[in-house]
């Protein structure tokens, strides 16, 4: 996806020149391999800092919340769906954002790459078409990206932006016949104790740093429930009960809103499979309401509407 870099720079430059945006949000090349840094460009002369490759796995929509200026922003399929969600939830206005759509072929799972090179330190990564080469002190290996996609990207069926003002490239082919919920179905099939065991083990390394929550564009509450002190809902120690409460409630707050962008999982410093908490709810939203978050500006999300003619008995 590195080839989008020049196009992004060109579009950003043009937008500044035409006065269509006051700032532009994208990525700049990171200081360590497989990491890039979100950047806000104010000065049109700095558009050359913009960069794109398959290591842009955060969610830039996170940086739009409550902004009041005119913003240009790059957006992949999932990021664009979060922008749609942000608009629906009144966190930003559609006419404020100029969305530069990225037809996305998925992000690289940096942990999987590390595993593939047996945790040796990677000093450089070069992306080339459908593959990439990583180099370390005593090794150099080339991999195909399709074998190292982030787990959410491997099952993504909305690679192309759903809402955009301009595309940075031709649309890519969408994945079809993806079995998106294989892992959830496996969990659903477990007995309660086994499920509990799975989630208990999943969070056993959690240090309550809140990187998962803060990487998520859905988490914009002025005060998160874990930070409330009057009353205090959740303890602040690393007692497993409190940690589990945080993860489960956080996931529930994302029900019917999560686009499975994977930023939470990517951000976690200790590799917790955070998406396992939200994915079941995504599946429920799909099974119960035929709903996938952020696909349209014209429909309210299922959990924020009430209709007297709702087909579910329990709510009538």
């Amino acid at each position, binding site marked *: 996806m590195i080839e989008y870099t020049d196009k992004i720079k060109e579009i950003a430059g043009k937008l500044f020149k035409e006065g269509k945006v006051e700032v532009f949000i994208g990525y700049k090349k990171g200081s360590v391999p497989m990491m*890039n840094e979100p*950047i806000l460009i104010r000065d049109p002369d700095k558009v050359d800092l913009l960069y794109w490759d398959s290591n842009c796995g955060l969610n830039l929509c996170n940086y739009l919340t409550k902004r009041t200026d005119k913003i240009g922003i790059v957006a992949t399929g999932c990021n664009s769906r979060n922008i749609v969600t942000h608009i629906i939830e009144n966190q930003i206005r559609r006419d404020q954002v100029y969305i530069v759509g990225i037809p996305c072929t998925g992000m690289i799972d940096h942990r999987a790459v590390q595993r593939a090179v047996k945790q040796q330190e990677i000093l450089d990564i070069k992306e080339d078409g459908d593959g990439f080469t990583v180099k370390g002190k005593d090794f150099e290996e080339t991999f195909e990206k399709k074998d190292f996609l982030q787990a959410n990207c491997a099952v993504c069926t909305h690679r192309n932006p759903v809402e955009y003002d301009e595309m940075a490239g031709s649309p890519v082919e969408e994945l079809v016949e993806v079995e998106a919920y294989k892992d959830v179905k496996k969990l659903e099939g477990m007995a309660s104790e086994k499920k509990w065991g799975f989630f208990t083990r999943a969070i056993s390394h959690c240090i309550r740093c809140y990187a998962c929550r803060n990487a998520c564009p859905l988490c914009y509450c002025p005060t998160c429930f874990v930070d409330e002190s009057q009353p205090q809902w959740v303890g602040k*120690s690393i007692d497993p009960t409190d940690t589990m409460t945080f993860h489960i409630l956080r996931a529930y707050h994302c029900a019917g809103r999560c686009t499975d962008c994977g930023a939470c999982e990517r951000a976690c410093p200790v*590799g917790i499979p955070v998406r396992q908490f939200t994915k079941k709810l995504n599946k429920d939203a799909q099974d119960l309401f035929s709903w996938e978050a952020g696909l349209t500006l014209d429909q309210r999300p299922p959990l924020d509407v009430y209709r007297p003619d709702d087909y579910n008995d329990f709510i009538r």
Partner: protein
Amino acid sequence: MKALEGLKDSYKISVPVKDGDFHGFGSLDGKKAPDFDYQNTRLSPKSLVYPQSERMFEYTLDENDPDANILKESAKDYSPHAIVGIRPCDAHGFQIANLNFDNPEYRDPWWVMHFESSVLVGLGCNEPCSTCFCTQVGGGPFSEKGLDILLYDLGDNFLARGLTDKGEEFLKKAGGGSQADESLLKDAGDLAASASEMISTGVSTDKLKDKVINELFDAPFWDDVAFGCINCGTCAYLCPTCWCFDIQDEVLGKEGDRIRNWDSCMFPLFTLHGSGHNPRDNKVQRVRQRFMHKLKYYVDKYGNGVQCSGCGRCVRYCPVNIDIRQVSELMNNF
């Protein structure tokens, strides 16, 4: 390894263990085998001396109890604790944090007792990471600073150098070794020199002490430095030198605990006043605080260099790639 087994009666022993994708410190008695083939642990060993959550006191609110509402110190374990395989940067980190917990003004009893009961058996870094910059902040891959013993991994042998009385005692109890000859000492020296040379990152901190605090505080670069920050606690919680904590009371029924938990200046709650006012209510202020503390306030207060041991954890694991090496350059050259 055999030597360690024999020390179990004299010390609690913590060692690096591989736990999934990364290493951490675990008990020698734990399920996971020690693994010294590692660059550094994901989390620093800070929690071994300064637990992320530590029960300070216990109390009862039961008015029928004659001790109602009286804080009683919780039981703690201060038996000798050997931290074996700690990297020199992390031992240096303890020295830096120790200045906060043990100084003429304050002595934090729990830190002091945990710290004093610890024996730090360091393992020099034969292969530092590309993100390491210990040599730029007063340490080195074979620095002896803050260690009781330094081990050199020479392939077939470990060379152990006792550095303090505590360290010598540990070595005496371990036994089994022999006096190193000249050639081994030379090998160790060569190893340390070549490891130092591998550290390629240049980080300037020399001019920080001469900067005017208010000018740095008002520097124009903070907005850009902070833009990507998501205000998580990864940097602070992985850091061997971040020492801030919060004290919480937790009550179940009539029984209560007073607990101290690590805290982070990245969190809005960190500075929220009881009045509702928050002096650092936006993220730029919070990010600035982190770097000003490490690279300016600490420098000015203790005259002891920066509050950073160059372990590189925040550089590698910051989810948005905010790099303290670059921030230090910006501040130093401002």
